[in-house]
């Protein structure tokens, strides 16, 4: 499929045109009560952690929180939870607060299309991110209100940065420019470690740079356009640009400029930290409270040196709370994890109806599919394991029929209860796994599980009474459900 731009509703178009950077998005959120400024003075630890955990409890409607009164960090601003709820994501997509997750999924899936970049080039002199430039005496502690995210993390993390790097063997290729979210632990005023999953683009680039003994320059973008934060974590193929995806998904141009070390960066980022890999140097990193809800261990991790920093005046440090789910990590990348798996499956199996891979970056996925014959759903599941994301992440897969909404766990439980035979459970032993999955046999290797909860199809012997009740479904029922909610609210208001 190739198209110029995605088709957007009038509301989505208005939002896409309005939002060019983080500040625009915070303003939009605030107008809808989805961004609040914390009214009291906080200590970096443990106060910030407590507030954001409380805000994150409401995955549907929790707000972003700005802290502008942090002890010891006068004048500095921190925002957490920008993508912390599905209502915040809905507003970014031009949908009302409270839009269902399923509706948001189809909105995103509908935007999934060509890889044609909508890039607006901004001269470095005109880019807000270059308003302030620091090239000597760099001290990250003096620039950012750093704090410990979980109580037993090994240090202070920059956990929501978009990191830009180029293939060190093909540095002029825009499409091979990688933008990803990797955790960064500050290791000194101008040093940090960066952890990447060995299969990810960044890890490949680190290996290439060290093998060829060539420089690997990176740009760490902080406080970004909200679409960038959502799509930098999207598992696209190696030669596809995340900038292109982000702009396509928003349906409006992304403003790019050059960093001092020659990479494309967001012109409206709050801060860009330019750094270079110290080839073959390693430093102890971790533990860090990770998205499976457990601490990862300590490892030797590649070390980088900061060479320069550009930042907007009074920059806002955007961070995230990660831990035992739900957290902002799940709402940030949940939908953008589902959409590519769906699109990639659709290429081979148009029978796929929806993919719910919201849980812990897709460690559990639920796929609904129009079943064609006995065992068909299992083949679709195998294909899902071969998608770029499925390769490492899709550990537990539940396959359901097209009459089951994979985003409605009550319906999924109905399918498990009525359509699963014990012999329809497949365990694939000794498969690759995410190294931080606590359920691994050894880090990086473990078992996969497929539960086929689809209905029996010929040539399967079909149970005698398997005539399914067909309650009314579709847009009319969805609208009626919304109407009932409105009536309830009105009744409450009386």
């Amino acid at each position, binding site marked *: 499929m190739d198209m110029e731009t995605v088709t957007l509703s009038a509301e989505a178009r208005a939002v896409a045109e309005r939002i060019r950077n983080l500040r625009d998005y915070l303003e939009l959120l605030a107008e809808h009560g989805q961004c609040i400024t914390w009214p009291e003075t906080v200590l970096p*630890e443990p106060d910030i952690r407590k507030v954001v955990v409380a805000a994150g409890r409401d995955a549907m409607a929790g707000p972003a929180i700005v802290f502008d009164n942090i002890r010891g960090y006068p004048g500095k601003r921190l925002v957490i939870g920008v993508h912390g709820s599905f209502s915040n994501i809905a507003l970014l997509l031009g949908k009302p607060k409270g839009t269902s997750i399923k509706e948001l999924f189809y909105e995103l899936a509908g935007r999934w299309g060509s890889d044609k970049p909508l890039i607006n080039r901004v001269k470095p002199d005109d880019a807000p991110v270059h308003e302030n430039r620091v090239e000597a005496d760099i001290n990250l*502690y003096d620039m950012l209100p750093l704090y410990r995210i979980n109580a037993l993390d090994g240090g*202070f993390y920059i956990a929501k940065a978009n990191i830009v790097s180029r293939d060190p063997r093909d540095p002029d290729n825009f499409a091979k420019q990688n933008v990803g979210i990797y955790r960064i632990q500050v*290791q*000194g005023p101008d040093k940090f*470690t960066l952890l990447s999953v060995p299969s990810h683009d960044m890890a490949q680039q680190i290996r290439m740079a060290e093998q060829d003994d060539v420089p690997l320059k990176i740009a760490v973008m902080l406080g970004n356009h909200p679409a960038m934060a959502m799509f930098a974590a999207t598992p696209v193929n190696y030669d596809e640009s995340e900038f292109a995806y982000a702009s396509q998904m928003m349906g409006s141009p992304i403003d790019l400029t050059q960093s001092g070390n020659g990479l494309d960066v967001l012109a409206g980022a709050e801060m860009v930290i330019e750094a270079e890999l110290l080839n073959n140097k390693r430093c*102890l990193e971790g533990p860090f409270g990770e998205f499976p809800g457990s*601490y990862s261990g300590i*490892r030797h991790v590649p070390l980088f040196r900061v060479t320069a920093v550009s930042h907007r005046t009074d920059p806002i440090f955007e961070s995230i709370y990660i831990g035992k789910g739900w957290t902002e990590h799940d709402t940030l990348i949940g939908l953008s994890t589902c959409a590519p798996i769906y699109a990639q499956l659709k290429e081979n199996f148009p029978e796929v109806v929806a993919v719910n891979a919201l849980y812990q970056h897709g460690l559990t996925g639920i796929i609904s599919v129009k079943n064609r014959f006995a065992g068909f759903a299992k083949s679709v599941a195998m294909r899902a394991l071969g998608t770029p994301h499925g390769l490492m992440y899709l550990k537990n897969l539940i396959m359901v029929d097209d009459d089951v909404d994979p985003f409605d766990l009550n319906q999924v439980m109905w399918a498990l209860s009525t359509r699963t035979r014990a012999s329809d459970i497949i365990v694939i032993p000794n498969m690759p796994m995410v190294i931080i999955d606590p359920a691994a046999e050894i880090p990086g290797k473990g078992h996969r599980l497929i539960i086929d909860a689809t209905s029996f199809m010929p040539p399967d012997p079909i149970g005698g009474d398997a005539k399914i009740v067909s309650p009314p479904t579709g847009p009319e029922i969805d609208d009626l459900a919304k109407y009932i909610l409105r009536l309830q609210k009105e009744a409450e208001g009386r």
Partner: protein
Amino acid sequence: MNCPRCNSAQEHLRTEYQGREGDELVWTVFYCRRCSFTWRDSEPAESIDYAEREAWFRADPDHPEKYKHNIPPADGN
């Protein structure tokens, strides 16, 4: 003061940054050059008191071979 995580002595610690409000010193951030732990002296004891930290969260810089490599260096060291 020793490192809260690996108990290394003062000589291995580095003062990273001091948070100030006007003339008031609010807190100080330290870094352990042996185990890379970073902490602020205003944090709760569960994070910065060696005795209160669960053993799993301690570090043993005398035995770096205990810790895996995320990406092994190309030069093999």
